[in-house]
């Protein structure tokens, strides 16, 4: 007797791939947010540092 219905497996394939795709996007978003935070921080350091060195903090 067979337990695994391969037709059903094929039917579920689509939704599993969508889940995979969505989470890939989320994980990528997390990485981007972290990089963005770094970018903003560095930008602030540079611009504010320039301001301070001009003496008008």
């Amino acid at each position, binding site marked *: 007797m*067979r*337990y*695994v219905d*391969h037709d*059903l*497996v*094929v039917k*579920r*394939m689509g939704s*599993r*791939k969508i889940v995979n795709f969505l989470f890939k996007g989320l994980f990528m978003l997390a990485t981007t947010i972290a990089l963005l935070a770094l970018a903003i921080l560095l930008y602030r350091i540079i611009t504010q540092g320039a301001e301070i060195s001009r003496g008008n903090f």
Partner: protein
Amino acid sequence: MTTISPIKIKKEIQPKEQHDIKKSVYLTKQLNLWYGDKHALKNIDLDIKEHEVTAIIGPSGCGKSTYIKTLNRMVELVPTVKTSGEILYRERNIFDSNYAVEELRTKVGMVFQKPNPFPKSIYDNVAYGPRIHGIKNKKILDEIVEKSLRGAAIWDEVKDRLNENAYSISGGQQQRICIARALAIEPDVILMDEPTSALDPISTLKIEELVQELKKDYSIIIVTHNMQQAARISDKTAFFLNGEVIEYDDTDVIFSNPSDKRTEDYISGRFG
């Protein structure tokens, strides 16, 4: 050049062999594969029949693993890989853009060179496949696990320790757990890449016996660089050399009466 397909020769010599009526499970047509610039598989043509054990032999680096990993498209995990040609699995080209690899891989199981169970319990290892494919019912899972472990001839050894980590058992047992894990999704084909090369002789013998048993229900393609093993367990043998199929025929023909000089040299141990 000996690029005349050995299959054709064979048909001329023995036209009414019974396996000719067996259906093809994998039909490889003019397959080429490159790792970057390295041309690893060259114009492969192979017709692999169902419910047979097909052995792939050849010296190290000739492309055996590459070929078997192409059959379930695992080879595509190497980013530089490019292929041309066709592989028809049950008449459908596996390279078709709308053929999901995940779907192919539920039909085609794989057993690796080094046992690679998941760092989970024996039970969870075997139940992994059915679970990801949507089976949640505990009773059905129990039945699948038992059936698969029996199928892999390891039920009696592990039935009292299903909740132990799969790494707590011996390498040979781990390899049979991996076979059970593959059986659990009831595949059509099982690919084995030198499944016994990391095992002791007794475990090797057990797996060889198991392969004989499994071929009743599954088509098996096994890479081995142990020629005695190929001779013992396979129905067909393909001899690979430098990315080409030199000869493909019934195993007893390959080992007793090869038509290519290079096959003869290899099986008589003159190189490789």
